């Protein structure tokens, strides 16, 4: 599979000398063509700085990176990128379609195709009815939709989105998720930066978790969220106490007649189930247990840091 975005030991420090603030500390990632790759992390982890390095908005202190084979921040690579920044701000005197026309021209969209692209992208994000309204009258959700249309105006191969669902209502979030899924189906690559973990979990192929400017884990969502060797066993209510005494589960939910057992091997699981059956205990269900991305995130980042991030 072709990697369209790679970075190698990317370091960014703000300021110099003893007061230098390390924002990125050797970030190396690779993003494949056609996947949705998400970067997660608490506030101040360095996610936005990383994106800015990719686009040449800030310059790396050391390390290197390439997008479509061109160095980070190069004009050539930007021709194939669409970007929605966090807290974006458009000229308030323009209407929605004027914004797209302006950024389309800056993105060197063929003038013959530009009007068609404006119609297509506005339709895609459901903003056709408000295309002639001044941007200053837009709600936060409408601004996000327009921002997404702006990011797509040049039909980019790589779409970089920094908190795309920020300020959008649940229906709008679902629509944005659908747009991203649609883009993936069309072979586009999406680089997503979000702290809405449930959404990331729903649409991402791979995720990386960043803390203090470093990638602390990276992988496929399924791999990261599957808790190996944990099984949820459901027992009839009148036999629940007896089952507990036989198995010594790692955790129980008596109100739901559920218990979680840890088995190193499938054979061990079979033995545990045989033990229950030999005591005439009815087994309702045996389900391999998965944790959510949020569980993993909190486990890796640590409760205190998550709380600090949410306070910010």
């Amino acid at each position, binding site marked *: 599979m072709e990697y369209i975005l790679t970075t190698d030991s990317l370091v960014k420090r703000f300021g110099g000398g003893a007061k230098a603030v390390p924002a990125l500390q050797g970030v190396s990632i690779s993003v494949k063509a056609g996947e949705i790759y998400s970067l997660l992390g608490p506030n101040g982890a360095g996610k936005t700085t990383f994106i800015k390095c990719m686009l040449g908005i800030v310059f790396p202190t050391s390390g290197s990176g390439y997008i479509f084979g061109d160095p980070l921040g190069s004009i050539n690579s930007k021709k194939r990128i669409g970007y929605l*920044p966090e*807290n974006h701000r458009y*000229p308030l005197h323009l209407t929605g379609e004027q914004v797209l026309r*302006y950024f389309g021209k*800056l993105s060197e969209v063929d003038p013959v195709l530009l009007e068609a692209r404006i119609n297509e992208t506005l339709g895609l994000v459901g903003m056709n009815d408000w295309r002639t309204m001044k941007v200053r009258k837009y709600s936060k959700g409408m601004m996000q939709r327009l921002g997404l249309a702006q990011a797509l105006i040049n039909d980019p191969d790589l779409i970089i989105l920094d908190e795309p669902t920020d300020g959008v209502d649940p229906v709008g979030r679902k629509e944005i998720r659908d747009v991203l899924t649609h883009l993936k189906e069309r072979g586009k690559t999406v680089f997503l930066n979000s702290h809405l973990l449930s959404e990331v979990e729903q649409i991402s192929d791979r995720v990386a978790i960043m803390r203090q400017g470093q990638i602390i884990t990276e992988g496929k969502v399924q791999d990261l969220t599957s808790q190996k060797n944990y099984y949820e066993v459901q027992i009839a209510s009148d036999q629940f106490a007896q089952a507990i005494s036989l198995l010594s589960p790692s955790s129980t939910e008596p109100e739901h007649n559920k218990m979680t057992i840890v088995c190193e091997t499938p054979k061990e699981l079979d033995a545990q189930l045989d033990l229950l059956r030999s005591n005439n205990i009815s087994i309702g269900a045996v389900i391999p247990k998965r944790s959510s991305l949020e569980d993993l995130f909190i486990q890796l980042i640590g409760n205190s840091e998550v709380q600090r991030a949410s306070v910010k």
Partner: protein
Amino acid sequence: MKQFFAIIEETFREAIAKKTLIGFFIFSTLIIVIAFFVFQSDDVRKAMAEVQNTSHNGNNNADMMAAVVKATVMDIFYAAVSNILYFFIICVGVFATSGLINSQMEKGTIDLLLSKPVPRWLYIFGRYMGGVLIIALEATWFILGMWVVVSTATGMWNYGFLACAFFITLGFAGIYSIVVLTAVLSRSSALSIIIGIGLFFLNGLISLGHAIETMVASSGKSWLTMIANILYYIFPSNSMGSNMGNLLMGKSIEWVPIFVTIGLSGVYLYLATLAFSKKEF
């Protein structure tokens, strides 16, 4: 090239939205209309008629002398008007256009702009040219309107007056290059206005200093001459006012200040684009 025109178009849109373009247009039109009524007033018409009569009293020598006096008076009048317009347009121009640079460096806007396949220098150059074109348009309108009003009233059509739009625009372009550099370095519209207007007044002093340079040199104070010379060749837009006067009075134009202004504008603009290219946002 399409990107360059897109930036200029957006600069005009922003100037229109901020009402600076229309405000400038309304104010200059108002001055032109007031000038029209002043020149149509009885007192001024009577004075003009007297000048016309004195130039037709049958005496050839006296007619010639009167015509020369009339032409000279009108040239001085045009020179005075052009210098007032020069002062007014540049001062108002700096106020009206200084925000155009900082508005594109605002948080949330700059990230979007820099993510596009546009060389960074083009944003600065495009905005600069947009600002200069706005002032060129306003100066042309103002000068053209005043020229028509004064010329129809006096019957003397001094075409050199029209060229003053070029000198005003060039003078503004010089000052604006430093305003742009200040805006990029400081990201402060207020500071760039202070620097721009301050420099404009300093220019007047430098021009004056340069004019008396010879006198100062003859008095043996060579360090004053040196300072005057350094300032004269560091700051753009010197001697535009006197050049307009020369043009209107039929004297030869000083080309050195024109080339110095063009050259220094280029240097300051280059420094601004260089600073912008290395800036992180």
